Every structure is written in C-alpha cells, then in structure tokens.
C-alpha cells in the first residue's frame, strides 16, 4: 500500500483551537493598542486644544500624516525602519507601536472635539466658582466633553480593532492571518471565513449598537 501524505487536509477540531488562539492575539493587540492610543490621543488632543506650546503647533500636522497614509504602509515602513535605528522589534511590538500611534492620531481629533464641545461659557462658569484649571478639566470638561464624544471614540476603537488585521503583513498571526493559513491548507474558505467574520461581527456589532443607543439617549 502506498503511504498517502497529503499537504491538504480537511478542517480538524484542532484547527478550531488554532483559530481561537489567533482570535485571542487579535484581542490582545487591539486592547493594548487602543489603551495606549487613547491615553496618548487624549494628551495630544488636549495639547492641540490648548495650543500654547510650539510642539502643539507641529503636532496637528504630524498626526494628520498618520491619518493620510494607509495603515499597511505605516506598518511596513516602521517594521523596516526600526532595525535601521537599531531597534529590533518583533512583529507584535511593531504592530503595537504603529497601531497605538495610528489610534492616537484618531483619538486626538475626537478628544479635541470633545473639549471644544464643552464651550467657553461653561468653562468660565466653572472657573468663576473658584475651580482650578485641573478641577475644571476633571469635573467639567471630562464628564461633559467625554459624554459628547464617547460614541465617536467607540467608533475609533472598533476601527482600530478591525484594522489590527493588517498587522498580519508583518507575519503576526492574528485571526485573519490564521484564517488565511488554514484556508491554504484545508481549501475550505467559506467555513473558515465565516468563523473569522462571525468573531469580528460578534465583537463589533453589539458594541456599536450600544454606543448608538447611548448617543441617542444622551442627545435628548
């Protein structure tokens, strides 16, 4: 009998585990990048809003670059640039750096919008009550402006989560890269793509609906 060694084989239960691990990596890189990006973005947004420092003047246009160049190009550029300046980052870390900065450039816009939404009269009122600059930020700007732009921030965060699929170009095996590998091996693209799509959808759809509900409730 001839031994049959097949490069292609059907979809096996162990493949499900492979996909689950990859989904976990998608979550991991997303949550990390969104967290870092949000903190950075709020700080950047605040600097641009205040606009006092020379740094803030250049910050806007610099962040604009990250919104005007495809993420995939940014990833390839950074991954190939890091070794040039002596940094040896693995695909995961490179991905986190690029996604975080990309996320920050989007959040900065949202955060600035939130601060502008509060409006000068309200802030003057807060200061007239004897609040310090920081108290005003903490107790007036954050709750009011934060509420105004929370739905936009959710949109940005979900966008970054979906865009994290692009880190696969660096070889990071997140959900879509894993799917691609499995598709090549099993030749069952419909099943695997459905699983991967369902994961993203199950994450994104409820959250975006919830944000939309909040937006409607807060609008009235």
């Amino acid at each position: 009998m001839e031994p049959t060694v097949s490069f292609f084989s059907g979809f096996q239960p162990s493949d499900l585990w492979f996909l689950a691990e990859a989904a976990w990596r998608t979550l991991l890189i997303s949550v990390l990048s969104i967290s870092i990006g949000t903190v950075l973005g709020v700080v950047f947004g605040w600097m641009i809003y205040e606009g006092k420092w020379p740094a803030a003047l250049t910050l806007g246009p610099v962040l604009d670059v990250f919104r005007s160049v495809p993420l995939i190009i940014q990833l390839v550029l950074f991954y190939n640039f890091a070794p040039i300046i002596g940094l040896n980052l693995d695909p995961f870390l490179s991905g986190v750096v690029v996604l975080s900065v990309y996320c920050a450039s989007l959040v900065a816009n949202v955060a600035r919008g939130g601060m502008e939404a509060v409006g000068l009269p309200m802030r003057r009122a807060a200061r007239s009550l004897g609040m310090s600059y920081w108290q005003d930020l903490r107790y007036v700007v954050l709750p009011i402006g934060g509420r105004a732009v929370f739905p936009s921030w959710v949109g940005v965060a979900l966008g970054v989560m979906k865009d994290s699929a692009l880190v696969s170009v660096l070889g990071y095996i997140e959900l879509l890269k894993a799917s691609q590998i499995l598709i090549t091996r099993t030749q069952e693209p419909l099943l695997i793509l459905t699983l991967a799509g369902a994961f993203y959808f199950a994450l994104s759809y409820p959250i975006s609906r919830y944000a939309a509900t909040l937006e409607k409730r807060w609008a009235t």
Partner: protein
Amino acid sequence: MFDYNFHWRPVMKSLPDLLEAGLVTLQVAALSMIIGIVIGLALALIRMHMRGPVKWLASAWVELARNTPALFQLFFFGFGLGAVGIHMSPYVIVLSALSFNCAGYLAENFRGGFQAIPDTQLRAARSLGMTVWQSYTRVIIPQVFRIVYHPLTNQIVWAVLMSSLGMLVGFRELSGETQALASRTYRIFEYFAVTAVIYYVIVKIILGASRLLAARLFRY
C-alpha cells in the same frame, strides 16, 4: 546607529511607475465611490421605506460592511467567492470589496441625511404636483448631498487608503506596485517611504479639491 545606507536612486528611477500605479489607485477608489454612492442610496432608502426580506438583506449588507474588517471583506471576495466557483481578477476583487464597504458606510450617512430633512419638504414638493421621483431627485436628495458632503469626502479618502489592501491579493495599485518593485531591489524602506508621500499628496489633493468644489456647489 545609522550604519544603514539609504539608497534613493532606484526609487527615483521607478517614480514614473509609482505615479502610474497611483492613477490606478485613484481610478479604483473613484469607481468604488460611484458604485458605493448608488448602492448606498438604494440601501438607505430600502432600510427606511421597505419591510420584509429585502430590508433584511439591505440591513445585513450595511452591518456586515461596517462591523467586519475591510481585509476580511477583501478575502471574502477573493477566496470566499473563489470557493463557489466565482473567480475574479485582482482588480475586480478589490473593486467589489471596496464598493461593498463604501456602500455600507455611505448607506448610514445617507440615512442620517434623509432623517435630517423635515417631512414637510416632501409635502411641499408634492403639493406643487411633483411626482415622488421628482420630489426626491429635485428637492430631497440635493439637500441630503449637502448634509453628507463632508462624510462623503472622508469616504473617498478612506477608499484611497483602503485600496492599498490590493497589495495583499496581488493587485498592482500603488501599494502592490511598490511591493513588487521593492522586493526586486530590497530597498523596502525607501520604496514605501516614497509611496507614503504619494498617498499623502493624493489625500491632500482630494481634500483641497473637495473644499473648492463645496465652495462652488453650496452657496446657500
């Protein structure tokens, strides 16, 4: 730290090729926008005015386009449809995925636009003897277009950036061309840096043109 020698000459030599590929990028983005606007309008109207299976289908389209990664959608039009015997050229794959995505996002923008027009506008138009079609094309939709003009501009930019995913399915738009040229010369960083600049310029030109057009179009 900088023991890397930058070589810009090969990139500059292939600049004409890159610019030509940039035109392909523009073309596919523009086409996907046109298709996306037509389908997006239809999806919005269906979701607002119809019931039953047609409405569910339209809703499924919109939600899938908005809640899964663009790369997933690209894979679907590539591998997924390939599995059921529909084989398309990379160009058509990218164009379909982009149009699918744009239509979904634009549908939501259009819906918001329609909801912002008071019902009384339709009544006024109808009371003058206009048909439903005339009322929509001459009175309602021109107003909707003004409301969605800014989101529409953003969507064009987004389509340009998103078309870079073509590189992952072997489509020679700007990114795909860059990758092909870069892998031939191993000057990956230099090539992608120049491409990033080209994308930036394209985006700025689109935004500038959009602003000029808006000034001409909306004098009210």
